[in-house]
């Protein structure tokens, strides 16, 4: 089953990382990604631009309203996502842990994808 792994992290902290630290984290993540790719499980990987670049359309009102910024002001922000094939919940948890070791801090929310269309 395909899962989406949503990466939440304190954006201010992430942007305060030194270049060396950033490089280290990315290298460790790439190693995990490589492994998943070799297993044929890795789907799209996205790293998002900062939330300052986000815009939100609130369509719960009429007319719909466009505002600057992410949908919700949260302590941790959505910074990226993975689509990864996992055979069951246990494998999903294990995958999240592996990614989490490469990139500690914040959280991964992972959820099965009902339908993914390319």
């Amino acid at each position, binding site marked *: 089953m395909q899962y989406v792994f949503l990466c939440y992290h*304190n954006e*201010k*902290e992430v*942007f*305060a*990382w030194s270049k060396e*630290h950033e490089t*280290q984290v990315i290298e460790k993540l790439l190693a995990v990604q490589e492994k998943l790719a070799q297993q044929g499980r890795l789907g799209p990987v996205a790293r998002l*631009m*900062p*939330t*300052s*670049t986000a*815009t939100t359309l609130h369509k719960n009102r009429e007319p719909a309203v*466009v*505002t*600057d*910024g992410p949908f919700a002001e949260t*302590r941790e922000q959505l910074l990226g996502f993975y689509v990864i094939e996992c055979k069951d919940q246990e494998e999903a948890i294990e995958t999240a842990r592996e990614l989490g070791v490469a990139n*500690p*801090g914040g959280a991964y929310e992972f959820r099965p994808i009902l339908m993914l269309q390319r």
Partner: protein
Amino acid sequence: MNEEARFDLALMSARPRAMAALLRYFRDLDTAEEAFQEACLRALQSWPRNGPPRDPTAWLIMVGRNAGLDSKRKHHNETELDDSNAPIDENLSLAERLDDSDYRDDILRLLFVCGHPTLPATQQIALALRIVSGLTVEQIARVFLVSPAAMEQRITRAKRAIAEAGVEFETPGAADRAQRLNAVSSMIYLMFTEGYGSTPDTAEARGPLADEAIRLARLLVGLFPSDPETLGLLALLLLQHARAPARFDRDGQIVLLEEQNRDAWNRAMIDEGCVMLEKAARHREPGPYQLQAAIAAIHSRAATAADTDWAQIDRLYQALERMTPSPVVTLNRAVAVSKLRGAEEALALIAPLEAKLSGYFYFHGVRGALLKQLGRADAARESLNRAIALASTVAEADHIRRELDSLVAQ
């Protein structure tokens, strides 16, 4: 990253909001700073033992407030309250009640205090780096190539000036808020430009300035996500900083924009800058930062120097002239005019600026280059010699010297 480094990072990113809240509470910069330092010390003692709190900022504010109060009580010779073992949690709900709509003005106030118009530019920047960014005095001293003792003095002087000027602790009205935002933006842009105009050696020392300016601009955007000029400021900084890797060649020589290796430009930064600019434009309230960012964006979008849309750049400079007329804007516009309609017309445009810009390196540099294009070697040489006399860095002087050498070769 080890645990201690992670805690340091959490402390640094909590600094602006925590310092701002403590400043509002104690109404005194020194007290707020000492309280924050004390809170950080306690964090580094308690967090490894008890684990980090869910909300580091609230924790730091609460502990900072208690620490500051304790210190005040000590000064008044009252019984010392020992709350070092008091559970922090019961105080947390109080911290959460800190009105979220106020913290925006708190941080703006903190930045405004640092960027106070009564302070000279270098003091503004030093204070902001110390108070908001949390750089150490040693780090800041290194950036400005002065001794730590001299930097310490500069910061103390700045704080004294602010104490004398007095800080407004009322919630600002819309007009005051706009004025503060303006002053803070100027300070941030000043910090950014201080990181430029230097040799590769000083560029390395000053690298932190551009990075910190961008970080503060991001902070500002976080507080005022819909303010077009704030978005424009961040866009401008990103678009300009994206070119930094191409500004010097291997020998430390300045590389002009039109000769820069565009593959070295930071594309991710350019993309982000362009998005911020588009977001700003949606509000249909043009302003100087947005206009300058738009000009920078045109350069960034040109695949080669020859692809540059100089006509659009000319139009944007004209709009900037109308908005914030200044001889420097006209000088920059003249460069665009020379690309569109030739050096003669550009020279005519800058001729009236001679009096105002006679002490400005770029005026003589641009005039020299234009005269050189027209083959007027003697006049060009005269301008370029005046430019060299005004060069403030080795790289600038070297660049003009190369221009002079190429004249001899003609």
